[in-house]
């Protein structure tokens, strides 16, 4: 089946007018004949305005040449139906290879993971690539598989990685649902540690809240504890880990509260791997987008993305208690307004929302309910570009046109 990638290129067929006009013989060169029997002609038989073209074969060649060029502009591709193919079995992560083999009896089939690149089922599933959306993987597989292959899709009961659009497949497919659940992933490929969110609420592992404070940061610890207490009240399962600035960071922790001045490079690397840091007393002014301002409009909290993680920078120190008249407070203009925003009743909740980051889209559903629909048309085979053949045709047409146009005329 031939289809055009850029059908607007066919508008170049308007160039047909040029050779047609060139070849159109004007009627003004009509012959004059001496004819004495003219009186027997009726005056009414005026000549019909018939389109007369000279050198019609040359004109035909030129029209063909223009048509071929217009077709080339329209980028034709050829999609075949392909050869008969062995059936394919695609296994979604969450179902083990053994379970899939046990459930589907297809000895001649091609067994593959439903993962980027469709790795064979014999290989282990590379975890780093498992975060790709299952829906888009299904659509891609639908386009890339041999057109006439029957596809068996083996999916766990609880299917993740879906998007808002129901998947439609052109291939003939079977939807097999086996017990199990898709692993849930964050954008960085780690298992979801975002706690307290709708999707993360089922995670029972406690979240380590690492606090690293230097001597000056000790003064900020009370407020940090108060925040942690408020978050516990909101349902967060926290594990407290307070230490000095040089202490090692826990590998599993996702949240760090840094109360020791500017972030050292080691922390940067940790953040890049996916951590979330709340750092106080950050002086850099370009520390990201302002996410919280005080009543006067001065920025209180900035957020920036760093690798896979995020850094929340607090302009001042994370403490309250400077009363009016205290010199430390007066040294910072606008500190009263900032203090007001820190001591606001909803500040812990606001900060919790910011620490959690943007919520994950709901992407899980019961597999039986989201079985793909059939598109109703046959799957398209791989596209073959026809431009080389067309270029050959254009060249030969051009050659023939030149030969015909410059040949020695018999009568000339």
């Amino acid at each position, binding site marked *: 089946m031939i289809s055009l990638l850029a059908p607007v290129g066919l508008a170049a067929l308007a160039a047909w007018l040029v050779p047609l006009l060139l070849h159109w013989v004007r*009627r003004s060169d*009509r012959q004059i*004949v*001496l*004819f*004495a029997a003219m009186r*027997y002609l009726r005056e009414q*038989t005026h000549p019909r305005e*018939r389109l007369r073209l000279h050198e019609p074969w040359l004109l035909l060649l030129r029209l063909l040449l223009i048509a071929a060029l217009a077709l080339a502009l329209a980028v034709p591709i050829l999609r075949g139906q392909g050869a008969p193919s062995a059936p394919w079995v695609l296994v979604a992560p969450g179902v083990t290879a053994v379970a899939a083999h046990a459930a589907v009896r297809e000895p001649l089939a091609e067994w593959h993971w439903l993962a980027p690149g469709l790795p064979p089922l014999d290989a282990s599933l590379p975890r780093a690539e498992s975060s790709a959306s299952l829906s888009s993987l299904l659509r891609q597989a639908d386009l890339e598989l041999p057109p006439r292959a029957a596809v068996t899709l083996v999916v766990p009961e609880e299917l993740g990685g879906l998007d808002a659009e129901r998947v439609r497949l052109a291939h003939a497919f079977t939807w097999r649902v086996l017990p199990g659940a898709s692993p849930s992933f964050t954008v960085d490929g780690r298992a979801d540690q975002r706690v307290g969110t709708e999707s993360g609420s089922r995670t029972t592992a406690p979240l380590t809240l690492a606090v690293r404070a230097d001597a000056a940061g000790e003064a900020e610890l009370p407020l940090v504890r108060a925040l942690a207490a408020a978050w516990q009240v909101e349902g967060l399962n926290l594990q407290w880990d307070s230490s000095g600035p040089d202490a090692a960071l826990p590998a599993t922790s996702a949240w760090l509260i840094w109360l020791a001045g500017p972030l050292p490079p080691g922390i940067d690397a940790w953040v890049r791997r996916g951590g979330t840091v709340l750092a106080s007393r950050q002086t850099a002014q370009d520390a990201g987008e302002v996410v919280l301002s005080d009543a006067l409009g001065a920025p209180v909290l900035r957020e920036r993305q760093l690798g896979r993680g995020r850094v929340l920078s607090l302009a001042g120190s994370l403490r309250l208690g400077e009363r009016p008249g205290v010199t430390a407070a007066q040294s910072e203009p606008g500190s009263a307004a900032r203090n007001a925003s820190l001591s606001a009743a909803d500040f812990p909740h606001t900060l919790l929302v910011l620490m959690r980051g943007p919520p994950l889209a709901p992407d899980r559903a019961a597999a039986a309910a989201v079985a793909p629909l059939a598109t109703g048309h046959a799957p398209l085979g791989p596209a073959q570009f026809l431009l080389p053949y067309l270029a050959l045709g254009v060249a030969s047409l051009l050659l023939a046109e030149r030969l015909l146009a410059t040949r020695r005329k018999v009568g000339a």
Partner: protein
Amino acid sequence: MLIPSDVRARLRGLRFASRLFANGLGLGQHRGRSRGAGLEFEQYRSYEIGDEPRRIDWKLYGRSDRFFVREAARDSPLTVWVLLDATASMVQADRARPGYTKFAAAKLLAACLAEIAVTQGDNIGMIGITGDGVQLVGAGGGARHRDRLLIDLDGFVCGGRWPNEAMFAPVWERVAIDSLVVIISDGFDAALPVVAQKLAAARRQVLSLGIVACDERDFPFTGGFIFRDPETGAECRVDGAAARTDFLARFAAARRDLAHGLARHGVPHVEHYLDEPADVVLRRILAGAG
């Protein structure tokens, strides 16, 4: 004026013949009106004063006791006049053969007639009728006259429209009673049948040769053309294929009317097509004239 050799060869069998009495001077091959001493007995008539006594048939006087004069018929030469239509419409030629105009064909026919006439000892003269007047070669006989006539005929030109009646004085002066008149024309001038009719009514035998171009007979035009009338200069845009059927019907009807009109006055009308040899039409018209 060169007659093609094959045509000239075929001309040998052709002869002029006239219904009327030939009245040329001298001896000829046609039945003449003049009587007198001769070989072939014609009639007896009663003696009149002045007849030679030796012409009285004395044996008959012996039987009837009255004087009778024995008369013999004398064969006379015929005088042939060729009346050439030399109006502008005769310049038309076929597209297939552009140089061969109707007038050239008419001259060739006239030359053939001269050849026949001289061969059988008749007198021949030519009159070309153009729009400006009349071109004339007087009647005469003999090879010398024929050569002069052919040279003069070569100088004939055609042009203009059919002249008015006053221009025809030389015709009436020259063309004597009992002579044979061959009119060669294309038949498009309405005055021509009138002239033929007048000549026929005035005791001249008239034959009419119509010259028809193949383009008129076949109308092989397809596509758009501009037709120009050579006499009036009028032009007309015509689509050949569309006009063909109607033109052929009307043209055939017009020619039929012309032939009928001439035949009604005893003038046979025969048509010569530009693509046939000259002797064909001559054979037909001379065979029918006797």
